[in-house]
């Protein structure tokens, strides 16, 4: 089945990293995936967006207009991309930064304060991995085990605590996601 994901937020929030990790994990599972980053000329703080398409077969077009899953990290991104998620899709919002009402009643909205959870866990940088965890818990798009293998590979040159922190973040995300599981 073909599934598309759009991750949006601002530079520095781990948008690109989350997208690459998801796509990489899908490929490790024997699926096909494309990852397209889009950003402005700024090094930090500019708008960041990436599109991931995962499919069992070869991916023809990597440029969907509407996505099945929209992940928004802040209010600016929400305002800009709220209409881009298909009816019946998933809208996953970072409730630490998105306070207002999410005005879509035709999609499954999952709001979680991932910045606050990341701080509780001990590192604000893992907010994106919590979001990936929620996505996996809710949609089972990729397996947790394969994703952990991807993370191991990604952080193989870092201190072991970095991997531990990321796995902790992933697990806390999955726990939230499972409460919103799509049957």
């Amino acid at each position, binding site marked *: 089945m073909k599934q598309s994901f759009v991750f949006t937020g601002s530079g520095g929030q781990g948008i690109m990293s989350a997208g*690459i990790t998801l796509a990489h994990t899908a490929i490790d599972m024997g699926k096909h995936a494309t*990852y397209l980053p889009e950003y402005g000329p700024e090094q930090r703080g500019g708008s960041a967006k990436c599109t991931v398409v995962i499919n069992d077969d070869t991916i023809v*077009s990597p*440029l*969907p*207009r509407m996505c099945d899953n929209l992940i928004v990290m802040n209010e600016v991104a929400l305002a800009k991309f709220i209409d881009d998620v298909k009816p019946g899709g998933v809208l996953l919002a970072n409730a630490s930064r998105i306070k207002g009402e999410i005005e879509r009643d035709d999609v499954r909205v999952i709001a979680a304060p991932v910045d606050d959870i990341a701080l509780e866990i001990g590192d604000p940088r893992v907010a994106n991995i919590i979001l990936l965890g929620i996505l996996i818990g809710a949609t089972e798009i990729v397996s947790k085990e394969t994703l952990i293998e991807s993370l191991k590979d990604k952080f193989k040159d870092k201190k072991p605590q970095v991997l531990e922190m990321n796995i902790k973040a992933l697990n806390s995300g999955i726990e939230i996601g499972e409460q919103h599981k799509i049957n």
Partner: protein
Amino acid sequence: MGEKRFMKGNEAIAEAAVRGGCRFFAGYPITPQNEIPEYLSWRLPEVGGVYVQGESEISSVNMVYGASAMGTRAMTSSSGPGISLKAEGISYLAAAMLPALVVNISRGGPGLGSIQPAQSDYLQATKALGHGGFHCMVFAPNSAQEAVDTVYEAWEYAERDRNPVLVLMDGCLGNIMEEVELPPMKEVIPEEAPEWSLSRRNGRDYQGNITPIYTEPILEGLNAMAGEMYKAWEEDDVKVEEFMVDDAEYVVVAYGIASRVSKEAVLKLREEGYKVGLIRPITLFPFPKKSIHDLDYSRVKGIIDVEMTIPAQMRDDIELQVLERCPVYEYGRSGGCLLDDDGVYEAIKDIVAGGEA
């Protein structure tokens, strides 16, 4: 089975160049192609090659001229504005009959344009990559895998013809990560550099040299030889993908990223019962004239040129083959705004359904 990796199109081009025998790169940074020089800056030294970030585009392309004259497989890459600056050097490469690979990862234009992807350099690539009326073979891969396969073979064409080869891909394909299967490393033996190269002639008594300057009758002769070469390309080297064209009443013509979005639309429209097909030029020069010329125009009701640029630039080449036997339509996005599945589907459907009404 080759080695599989998840790579950006730009990185895939760089790795395929190394495996295809490239041992010299000179370039100057510009978005959206920076992953090519970045990758080669560490990768080329690993295989005994040389990477140079030149002080400008012009110096870089002329360094490629020097390396190529020595028989080294050499390349440069840039995006539209930088390719304009390299135009003089590319023309000199063609004049001196030197092989080289030039890669253009295109973005919005004209002028500085936009750093976002666009297919705005078709005319520059196919009609006049520099002054003086020369042509290069122009390849337009539509995936990271096809970019690998194209770049890996690029010097085979360039050395056969003693002429630069251009790979034209937009910033979208340059930045998309996809799985690629990498071919094995080609063996590069410096002692077996091309017969004409200066490295082979060192210490020998010879009159010939490598020059872009000729007397009038010799230049005319070389121009005529180039003309014959372009004709031979049309006979032997055209690459094209024809998809669901046999019974098509409407045929989309699209290359690069536009061809992938268009193919998605064609598949969807076929499911809905519309007889739509796709012709995808893989070589933009030589252009796949026959594929379009030889369509059965008693059946084909329209040709739709889809490009990620406005206005469409391939249209003249298409119309020269259609010869007013059916209408030619165009759809595009431009300036760094990307084509998308729904947009292309709706645009084609409007034309197809409109024609049936």
